[in-house]
């Protein structure tokens, strides 16, 4: 049987980050992923905010940066738009769109260079506890084998099988799982360059639609819906959006991406005996934007660091691993709770109220681009918002 200190399941950005930091902390690490190609197919709109990678100690590599972003445009159901760009704001918070198929591989390579052993096309099948270890049964090319580990880090994405196998109470309710769908398109006609666009209202019930530019006329055009808020499939909503949106009237799809996005906030159990959970599997996703690359990688880093310390101390109990939850709550939890409140409020607004907010925003001055800044101005124009969200700012 293969034995290791730390076994990470899932080589998305969160899992690779966990593997990298566990290895860096001196643990023997195996990182498995069920796919033949890490990072493909992408299930993501690929946007990240500036400094996210730098704060993780990663220097962004031009090989996985698709486009630098200078601002955003918020579009109401009637088409009224609010521009938050360099033209309106002195110092906008910028970001990038990524090439996830390259990025994810580079992150896994970083883990490998720290000493993690990677096994691709290796599917996790089941989990059992044995003494002070856990044994994961895996499958590779039809062959079944076991890996014995002192700690497993579950980074198996929205599917989140592993933490539930371990007995943790992490069920994503249907109302908290966005059904995401996206075309990568060429021939997209942007009004302004380097701007990410968000479309709100009934075009995407329970979520929003987006256009994230990746090159001069290339963009990820997608949307996310909550299935129980609509009778149509996410795909039908996307086709309607693309047909009606001025920017995509002449665009052609070259790729279709789908996937679930858990937007209900952190899961209940982030740890247990011999297990830590990170990334989408842990709900480390901004509930408002659905973005989870950087938060998942931070979660992965904390998980990897705590796992390495746990190995060093020879204590893999939930009592020791609780430190991980404390760090996550402090570093990610508070912000996520705030965003969850804003999301609940934003989704309660019918199309006409979204339109009147967009109208009122025309005369507002935004000092910077951030969710907090938008909420700050929202409570200025809407007494109802002040009532619901006033406490948050």
């Amino acid at each position, binding site marked *: 049987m293969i034995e290791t200190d730390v076994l990470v399941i899932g080589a998305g950005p969160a899992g690779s980050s966990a593997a990298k930091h566990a290895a860096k902390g001196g643990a023997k690490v195996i990182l498995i992923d*069920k796919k033949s190609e890490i990072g493909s197919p992408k299930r993501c709109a690929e946007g990240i905010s500036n400094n996210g990678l730098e704060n993780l100690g990663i220097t962004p590599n031009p090989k996985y940066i698709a486009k630098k972003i200078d601002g955003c445009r918020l579009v109401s159901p009637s088409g009224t738009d609010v521009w938050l760009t360099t033209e309106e704001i002195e110092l906008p918070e910028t970001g990038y769109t990524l090439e996830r198929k390259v990025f994810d591989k580079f992150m896994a390579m970083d883990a490998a260079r720290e000493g993690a052993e990677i096994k691709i096309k290796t599917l996790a099948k089941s989990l059992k506890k044995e003494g002070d270890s856990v044994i994961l049964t895996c499958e590779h090319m039809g062959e079944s084998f076991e890996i014995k580990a002192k700690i497993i880090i579950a980074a198996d994405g929205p*599917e989140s*099988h592993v933490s539930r196998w371990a007995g943790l109470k992490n*069920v994503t*309710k249907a109302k908290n799982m966005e059904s995401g769908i996206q075309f990568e398109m060429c021939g997209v006609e942007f009004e302004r360059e380097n701007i990410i666009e968000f479309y709100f209202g009934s075009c995407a019930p329970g979520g929003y639609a987006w256009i994230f530019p990746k090159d001069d006329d290339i963009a990820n055009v997608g949307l996310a819906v909550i299935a129980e808020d609509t009778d149509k499939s996410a*795909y039908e909503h996307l086709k309607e959006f693309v047909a009606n949106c001025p920017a995509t009237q002449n665009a052609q799809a070259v790729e279709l991406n*789908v*996937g679930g996005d858990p937007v209900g906030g952190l899961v209940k159990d982030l740890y247990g005996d011999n297990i830590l959970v990170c990334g989408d599997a842990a709900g480390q996703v901004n509930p408002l934007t659905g973005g989870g690359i950087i938060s998942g990688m931070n979660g992965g880093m904390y998980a990897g660091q705590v796992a390495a310390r746990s190995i060093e101390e020879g204590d893999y109990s939930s009592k020791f691993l609780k430190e991980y939850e404390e760090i996550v709550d402090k570093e990610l939890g508070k912000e996520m709770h705030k965003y969850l409140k804003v999301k609940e409020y934003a989704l309660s607004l019918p199309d006409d109220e979204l339109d009147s907010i967009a109208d009122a925003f025309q005369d507002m001055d935004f000092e910077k681009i951030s969710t907090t800044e938008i909420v700050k101005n929202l409570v200025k124009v809407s007494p109802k918002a002040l009532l619901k969200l006033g406490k948050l700012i």
Partner: protein
Amino acid sequence: MNILFILLFGDIMIVKDWCSYCGECAGICPKNIIEVKEYSLVFDEKECSRCEICVKACPLNALEME
């Protein structure tokens, strides 16, 4: 036994050939019985409670319940 099993539980779930194996169904399955391989979905149908949450959530309408 096999025939009885198929009669009782067989082919509850039909996976259409346009499924993209994104795994959203697996994530919201309250029973955690949907295995997503790279290019196939496997249901532990004897455990299925026919709640149809997976059918409703599929972004591509690629699941059908018999």
